[in-house]
């Protein structure tokens, strides 16, 4: 499984990596802002199974990044991982195309739960169709 972690804090990306490594065979890529993330996505034509996106970042923020990804890619799973906890922000992110939302600070269990929930939900229609 390939995951892209987009957060301007390297510490936060390391924490996320440590937690999500427990999913098993995971290959991680990282980006420090939206501009860097688009470059990483372009350099990986096979794509990512899931992208974790912070909201507040320099150069290009997370909500802009989600919009840009969704212009061409409706399939990749996107989770917003941010301190932005207001209902209006959550709704804005859902409208922009995220599949799930996790608020910082989070426990390792809460992050893992959101990621598993998102992956399971994406698998469910495929399993039902089989």
């Amino acid at each position, binding site marked *: 499984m390939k995951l892209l972690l987009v957060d301007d804090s*390297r510490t936060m990306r390391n924490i996320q990596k440590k937690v999500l490594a427990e999913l098993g065979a995971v290959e991680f890529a990282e980006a420090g802002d939206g501009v860097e993330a688009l470059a990483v996505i372009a350099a990986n034509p096979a794509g990512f199974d899931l992208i974790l996106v912070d909201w507040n970042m*320099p150069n290009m923020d997370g909500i802009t990044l989600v919009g840009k990804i969704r212009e061409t890619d409706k399939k990749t799973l996107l989770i917003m991982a941010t*301190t932005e906890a*207001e209902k209006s922000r959550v709704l804005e992110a859902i409208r922009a195309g995220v599949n799930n939302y996790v608020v*910082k600070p989070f426990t390792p269990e809460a992050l893992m739960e959101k990621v598993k929930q998102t992956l399971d939900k994406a698998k469910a229609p495929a399993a039902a169709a089989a």
Partner: protein
Amino acid sequence: MSTPTTSAPPAINPKLIVPFINSVRQVFATMVKVPTTVERPHLKTQPAPQYDVSSIIGFSGDIVGSVVVSFQTEAAVQIVSAFAGMPIDPNSPDFADAVCELANMIAGSAKKDLGCNASITVPSVIIGRGHSIARLSDVPCLVVPCKTPVGDFAVEVNIKMNKPV
């Protein structure tokens, strides 16, 4: 002969300070796992931040101003190492990065409970004894002192509402 006037110190608005007390408790309980005691907030009288390592976050929108999370150096080293889950050298770029992310979470969590439509800036960090930070002069700066077994830190709140809450 004119009578000298004494002005009362500005009152602390609990609506502005309680969200920060709660966010410190939440961030430290959830992601740092270092026991933290929040002490009674007070008005700041000195221009310099409380300690030597400070992260600053600006607010804009319905709330304007800034919040500074200021650590004793040794406390900062221990706290960010606990947060990152590995030892962090104060001379490495990861040190400032982790201090900023902690401040980001404290300010971000508080923002929701302030109940306003506001944005926060990407945090920056200043390290050095006796540094000073320019603040809004027309509102008081409130200090939330915090104690941990590894040292002290403080959250300095210098914000005002552009509309009443």
